């Protein structure tokens, strides 16, 4: 499912090119949530921010963070990918995710369609090992646990835990408990 944020904002009569403040984030979240009601288990929701310049921390907290938490639900898991983010949007998302992860002691991360200024295709506080696995999957599209163990050169149980944690964050997809896919 692809949602063009600019079109959504136009329909909601929100002033652009900036999406600022908590109330605006809440309105956008409610609207996207309605659309996401039809998403299939395991489907990827692509949010295209083309034409949007600034999204501030309040908007991010009310909209993107809540959608990521929704995606982690066990009842109807889905995946998220952000596209066409401005530099300031990336910067603001990164700050919110880092603060959230520090204070909640629970990492949040989101995959991106375009390469970010951290030279990776995600935003969020992933460790070097997690980062390597996400990048390995992005290049290879799908891998098994054995592939990951070969790549990481670490014990199987540790690599399995790494993959499970990344899946719980919705940074990678999992199928039948054995094969992992890029988002």
């Amino acid at each position, binding site marked *: 499912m692809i949602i063009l944020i600019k079109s959504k904002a136009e329909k909601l009569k929100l*002033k652009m090119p*900036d999406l*600022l403040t908590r109330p605006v984030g809440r309105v956008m979240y409610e609207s996207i949530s309605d659309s996401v009601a039809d998403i299939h288990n395991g489907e990827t929701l692509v949010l295209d921010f083309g034409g949007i310049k*600034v999204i*501030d921390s*309040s908007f991010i907290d009310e909209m993107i963070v809540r959608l990521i938490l929704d995606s982690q639900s066990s009842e109807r898991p889905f995946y998220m990918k952000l596209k066409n983010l401005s530099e300031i949007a990336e910067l603001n998302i990164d700050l919110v995710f880092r603060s959230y992860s520090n*204070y*909640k002691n629970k990492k949040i991360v989101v995959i991106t369609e375009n390469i970010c200024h951290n030279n990776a295709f995600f935003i969020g506080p992933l460790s070097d090992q997690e980062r390597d696995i996400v990048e390995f999957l992005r290049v290879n599209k799908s891998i098994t646990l054995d592939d990951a163990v070969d790549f990481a050169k670490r014990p199987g149980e540790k690599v399995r835990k790494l993959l499970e944690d990344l899946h719980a964050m919705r940074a990678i997809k999992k199928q039948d408990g054995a094969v992992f896919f890029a988002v």
Partner: protein
Amino acid sequence: MADNATLIVPNRFKDQYDFEYVIDLQDRVLGGARDLDCSRITFIEPYSMLSLLLLGRNYLRKSGNKLRLWNIPLNIHQYLHRMDFLKMGVFEITGALNEKMLLKRSSFSNRVIEITEIPNKERESVKVIATVASVFRKRAQHILKHWLSSDRIIDYFVTVISEICQNIYEHSLDSGYLAMQTYSVGRQNIVRLSIADSGIGIVKSFENNTVAYDSHAHLIELAITTPISSKREFGYGLCQVNSIVEKLKGNIFLRSGDASVSTLYHKKTQGSSFLFHKNDLSNFDGTQISITLTG
């Protein structure tokens, strides 16, 4: 000749540090002065202008009367009129300016954002923030003329405006004001964004919070440099503002109650001190912020 009800205002409006002299006179103003003789003022910048406005509003709320500004030099009067200072309805002005003497809204208009009231209600404030961001975008090419190496800086300032203005209605429990201007002093170009309120201030905002601090200035420093929040588990706003100003090598001055913190990123060299505390200043209600770039 000035009587006891008249205070001759010193010429201390050139920056946030200079304005401390005017704040020191606040007790005399709130204690009974009715008239402010402005004849000595030769220059006034956005932070001092907003703080003077708050001083007048505090007086109006306390006494029910408007402070009278008189003997305002022509250039100052023109500037205050142009910045919509007089429209705020806080002061009584003697000697209205002749229509012919008013500054036209021409090229100068592009270098300022006039005083804008930020309401303390969420719904109204959201509209005002969107409008200010829009006005800023239209004028940014002029306001940031000397700093505009890429459009990125415009986005940075939109973030800063949004984050600080939201703090007014989320934390201060009062309305506030915003103004922005680029100007020159000698050969130095300055752009200054000021946002100020006379609400409960940072210390009171955190009084039911478990954040530990050594002094009021230390608490202000924590509010700027760490994601603490008085309302939520954690916050992002001021921390993000600080991070942006550091990237731009600018200066943040944040005053609240009787303390202030200055971060001088433009003077920071590796390992040097760049953050300065001041405690035990004269109390001035609320929180006043000034973001400055020099070049």
